[in-house]
């Protein structure tokens, strides 16, 4: 099997597993929508307030929803021994991790991005802000998943796993949140959002290169 084959195998396998457990992905999506809907109920339906907090709320909800999806990334494979087999197979583990990450992004992050225009309507966001929001989410969610995969791999099999992942991830998510919500803010202030988007894109490229090998190393540490 070639390198690309290893990657494709992991991607296909995780997509197939996700199709058989559709409820998992739907739960994350439900969480995202519900978490966003709580804010207007909590602070009141004034249009200008909603407009002001909309991008931030959507980002925070996306960040928390991603974190809900993280434990599934490796825990099932760890519990049934597949992970040990993957490591023992001698195939490059970082490519397997990369495949799993792309699958996780397609299953959890992409639906969330697709639903975002609806939430933008609910928060009375101006129409020209929606493409910026979507672009920021497209560039930012891979960073969230990549950093999350490292945390998920480090906490593999621990009883405190899910809460611990939150504690490890959130400080690292700060730049994504700042640049992601900042892109929309900048546009609303009449500035160009491209500086923020470019930084998010740079972050995405860095994470795309670094996260799979680091997460693979973390898996080895956890399993050995």
């Amino acid at each position: 099997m070639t390198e690309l084959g290893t990657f494709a195998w992991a991607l296909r396998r995780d997509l197939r597993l996700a199709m058989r457990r559709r409820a998992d992905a739907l739960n994350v999506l439900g969480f995202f929508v519900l978490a966003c809907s709580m804010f207007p109920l909590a602070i009141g339906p004034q249009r200008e307030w909603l407009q002001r907090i909309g991008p931030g709320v959507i980002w925070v909800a996306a960040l928390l929803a991603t974190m809900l999806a993280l434990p599934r990334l490796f825990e099932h494979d760890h519990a049934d021994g597949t992970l040990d087999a993957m490591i023992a197979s001698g195939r490059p583990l970082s490519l397997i991790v990369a495949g799993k990450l792309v699958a996780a992004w397609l299953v959890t992050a992409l639906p969330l991005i697709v639903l975002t225009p609806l939430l933008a309507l609910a928060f009375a966001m101006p129409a020209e802000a929606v493409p910026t929001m979507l672009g920021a989410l497209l560039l930012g969610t891979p960073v969230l998943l990549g950093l999350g995969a490292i945390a998920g791999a480090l906490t593999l099999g621990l009883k405190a796993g899910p809460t611990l992942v939150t504690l490890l991830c959130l400080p690292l998510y700060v730049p994504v949140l700042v640049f992601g919500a900042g892109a929309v803010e900048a546009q609303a202030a009449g500035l160009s959002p491209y500086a923020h988007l470019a930084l998010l894109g740079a972050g995405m490229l860095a994470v795309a290169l670094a996260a799979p090998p680091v997460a693979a190393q973390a898996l080895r540490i956890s399993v050995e």
Partner: protein
Amino acid sequence: MNLFRYAAPQTFYPLAGRLQPWFAAAAIALALAGLWVGFGIAPADFQQGEVYRIIFIHVPSAWMAMFIYLVMAGYAVFTLVFRTRLSGMMCRALAPTGALMAAISLWTGAIWGRPTWGTYWVWDARLTSTLILLFLYLGYLALIAAIEDTERADRAGALLLLVGVVNVPIIYFSVRWWNTLHQGASVSLSAAPRMASTMLAGMLLMSLAAWMYSIAAALHRVRSIILERERHTRWVRQLAG
């Protein structure tokens, strides 16, 4: 002399025991001198009055909080690359002191901010990034506490430290940018007036005291960790009698 001799816990334990009292004594002496210069000799600030004197504790602890994280990341490289056991123990011994320093700098900053800025907390870039640094320390401590197997805990913690140390500058600049976008720089620590030389002397003495204290505390803690980890070895049993 072979420096790596002291990379073994067995040889490092007595060395740490011999050095630790000296560092502790130096910490006390320097702190007394620094406090005397800071509170006795240094003049009152013409803008802030006596309130400014908290910087003699605030600034050294903030420096220490950042520096200890870098030192831990340095040890983390040794843990991951050379698999040395002592480096993992040093990380574990340094982390509580680093978290303490971050907490002290936030705490003293809040006390100073109330009379000077009129509020305990502003979302200033430095404050926010120190808060996030404290969270990074707490995350590290939580991770190593959750893993029972000590080797896995050390290596997992080391990897987390390296991911963290790459992120710290990114976090700092992102927060700085975020702050300047939202509100103009209402308060800026860097725009403080130039310091009198006695103030500077007091701060340097206190910084050295913070260094000595951190080393002494880490050595004390690492001795306990060594004993706990090596309790089944012959040399520890002989030591215990």
